[in-house]
């Protein structure tokens, strides 16, 4: 394999995952929290694909595609919740959503 070996990709995947986790924990807007979750999922996808290349098996890539499908469905439900919050004129701030009453 030309270029960097798998360890470099794994460090990059760890940095991406940590950046996403930082966004989830620090930001309060639910939209940006969803975007940060996407970064976390992509960090794990990068690790899966790097190991698929290291082991010479494509199962890691199949797993990454499944993760992409799950991420798409998570975005659908999350954006549905955010739109429902927006229609009820709830302030979009996860720190202020303390109760789960309908």
């Amino acid at each position, binding site marked *: 394999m030309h*270029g960097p070996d798998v360890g470099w990709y794994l460090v990059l995947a760890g940095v991406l995952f940590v950046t996403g986790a930082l966004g989830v924990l620090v930001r309060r807007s639910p939209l940006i929290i969803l975007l940060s979750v996407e970064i976390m999922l992509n960090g794990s996808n990068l690790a899966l694909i790097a190991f698929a290349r290291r082991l010479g098996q494509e199962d890691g890539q199949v797993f990454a595609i499944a993760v992409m499908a*799950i991420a798409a469905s998570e975005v659908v439900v999350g954006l549905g919740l955010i*739109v429902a919050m927006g229609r*009820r004129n709830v302030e979009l701030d996860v720190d202020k959503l303390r109760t789960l009453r309908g």
Partner: protein
Amino acid sequence: MANFIVWCVWCVAAFACIASALGVISFKNPFFSALALIGNLASLAVLYLLLGGEFVAAGQVLVYGGAVMVMFLFVIAYLGDRTDEAPWAGGPSWQAIGTVLAAGAILAEVIVALALTTGNLSKEAHIDRSFGTPASIGRLFLTDHLLAFEVTSIVLLVAAVGGVVLGAHARALDEDARP
């Protein structure tokens, strides 16, 4: 020479990846965050290409960078700019300090774990030209991972129904609230 070019492409893509991820979590306006995430997904697709994942890279650009992000931008435009949140305003809170410390701990753990496995990672498997092509990925999906494939389709169906139900529920609440 080929090695040098691959290293250059890797460095540019990795830098763009990290910079756009930091942009996503630090922009005040969610619209710019979503645009930065598109850049992040595109640079990750370059890395997937370097790793031999052609089909995954194409899917990343089409599904993620295209469909999912367009949906995000639609919702952000629909809701408007109603979040007046400055991410790092008012000095660092105890929440932010604890989060940065925890994130640093996770990163240090990843790097130590990688440093302890030296030698194993630099070995590489021999791959042939069909590695990561749509044909071989599709064959794996329909043979070894058929159950995962079918379960994924059910998950997507459930998510679609959930999105419709949430939208209908919000519309009913909307009409109740209207005098």
